[in-house]
């Protein structure tokens, strides 16, 4: 059984009087421990697909199952709790909270788990150690480079040991060297820590690092 299962997913938006169809009858399986890159032109629905899998958006019809849970049928409060437990999300523009330190940013998801302060402290240090920033615990986002910020965002995504890590254009705002570092980190998370990763990217080079590449064009998926 796949970790992520989309069945006959239909998604449309209403913009003024116009209905915009994003997907029709989209079906997708993502295996556990896989590293999948999702490519496609702007407006093809890549980010929408990621949002649907994360439960941030709801399909117009169809079912989305992640780790056995029917995401599309969950009430909002249960969905928030489920997301906290199962999903690690990384944004293109890092989206760290600027007034919190790297440590505090990474600690945020753990505040939703029944952990002691000491347990949280240990996990944050481990996560920041995995991304190579255990010497930047007390730095604020403004004191970090773009690559470092994105690594903190990845640490925040992995710190609660989620079932699935979703990344939306994680190298989109990074220079080549920082992008390489981030991609190498993702490969290591998949190969060594067996994390299931889905990455949305425009960058063919970034997609090459994945084990599986899917192309999304006009709402249709192709390998």
């Amino acid at each position, binding site marked *: 059984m796949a970790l992520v299962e989309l069945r006959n997913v239909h998604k449309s938006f209403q913009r003024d009087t116009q209905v915009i169809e994003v997907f029709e009858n989209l079906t997708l399986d993502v295996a556990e421990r896989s590293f999948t890159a999702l490519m496609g032109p702007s407006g093809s629905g890549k980010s929408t697909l990621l949002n649907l899998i994360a439960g941030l958006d709801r399909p117009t019809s169809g079912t989305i199952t992640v780790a056995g849970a029917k995401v599309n049928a969950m009430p*909002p409060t249960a969905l*928030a709790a489920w997301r906290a*437990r199962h999903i690690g999300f990384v944004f293109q*523009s890092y*989206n760290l*909270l*600027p007034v*919190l330190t790297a440590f505090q940013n990474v600690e*945020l998801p753990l505040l939703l788990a029944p952990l002691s302060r000491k347990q949280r402290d240990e996990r944050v240090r481990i996560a920041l150690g995995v991304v190579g920033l255990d010497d930047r615990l007390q730095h604020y986002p403004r004191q970090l480079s773009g690559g470092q910020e994105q690594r903190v965002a990845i640490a925040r995504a992995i710190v609660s040991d989620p079932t699935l890590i979703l990344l939306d254009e994680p190298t989109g705002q990074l220079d080549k060297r920082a992008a390489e570092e981030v991609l190498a980190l993702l490969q290591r998370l998949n190969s060594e820590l067996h994390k299931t990763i889905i990455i949305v990217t425009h960058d063919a080079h970034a997609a090459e690092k994945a084990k599986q590449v899917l192309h999304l064009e006009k709402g249709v998926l192709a390998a």
Partner: protein
Amino acid sequence: MKIPFVYNLRSIGQRPVSTAMTALGVSLVVAVFVAMLALANGFRAALVKTGSPGNVIVLRRGAASEMESGISRESERLIAADPRIATGAAGRPLVSPEVFVVINIPRAVGEGVNNVVARGVNDEAFAVRNIHIVAGRKFESGRSEIIIGKKIVPRFAHTAIGDTLRFATRDWLVVGHFEAGGSALESEVWGENEQFMPVFRGEVFQSVILRLTDPAAFDDLKRALEGDQRLTVQAQRESAFYAGQSTVLTRILTFLAVMITSVMAVGAVFGAVNTMYAAVSSRTPEIAVLLTLGFPPRSVLASFLAESAAIAFLGGVAGGLLALPINGIVTSTTNWNSFSEVAFAFRVTPGLLVGGVIFAVVMGVVGGFFPAWRAARLQVVQALR
């Protein structure tokens, strides 16, 4: 688990100008709120201090104030004979039959006159009322001499020792100033009752104040006096009488404080609304991240409410500090029971300051609610775009 408060505190620090303006608005409301209630508080305290729980005031039955009362010499003698009354150093009962009238005397500053209570008392009054001469001496029996309460000395003309004050068609020599523990008695002019009686209201006293040997004997004394067929009087604990005298004006001042500050609070609340809408608007992506991480909408709501409350709390503390210097400043108003001037000090108490801060926090929570509600209802996908 809630969103850490440090996130809100540091976010407040990111926009110091709008935070300061909002806090300033709240602080002004709180300062006015505290100041007005300190006024009511001070007035009430002055009157309440006037009465001692060990003292009893006897008035004509049905009289709501000393102004309306009249007690004959014969009645006074019957009252003074009660065995429950304490005796003074000379072995005489601690009973003070008093004449109570309102006179006009000229103000120290500007034109015009004001009503002031003139109270005729006997020697025992000083012990019964706990009065101390702070300058000069007591009036002497049989002479047209008066002493002045220290709170009104600077407010009225001809009240210095050695001055002559003219009222009731006679000249009265000021021979002393007295204090009465900050009570309303310090706003009065005192002379001998035997001198005041013939020039004012004839052969009647307006009240009889007496000190009980045992304050617990009040009920027995009250029953005895009010049940005596020869007397038509009512007895009240002095403390309860003066507390009652302050009720009307205290209520009016409190009502005004609440009304005025409520109107001002609307403005402050709108300030908080503005600031918090701006905060929510500028931090939309951050809110989206928090919701994406799995914080439930109620945590976001609580977080922004706490932030608004924190700004208002700062305003509340500042407002309290702004109002604090008025503590002890002497002002005056008309006692609506005697239509005479009562001088008293603004009284800013710890309870009032705490009340001001609570009021501020309430303003913050009210002002922050709709922006926080908007934050909690944010559509994550749209916010992330």
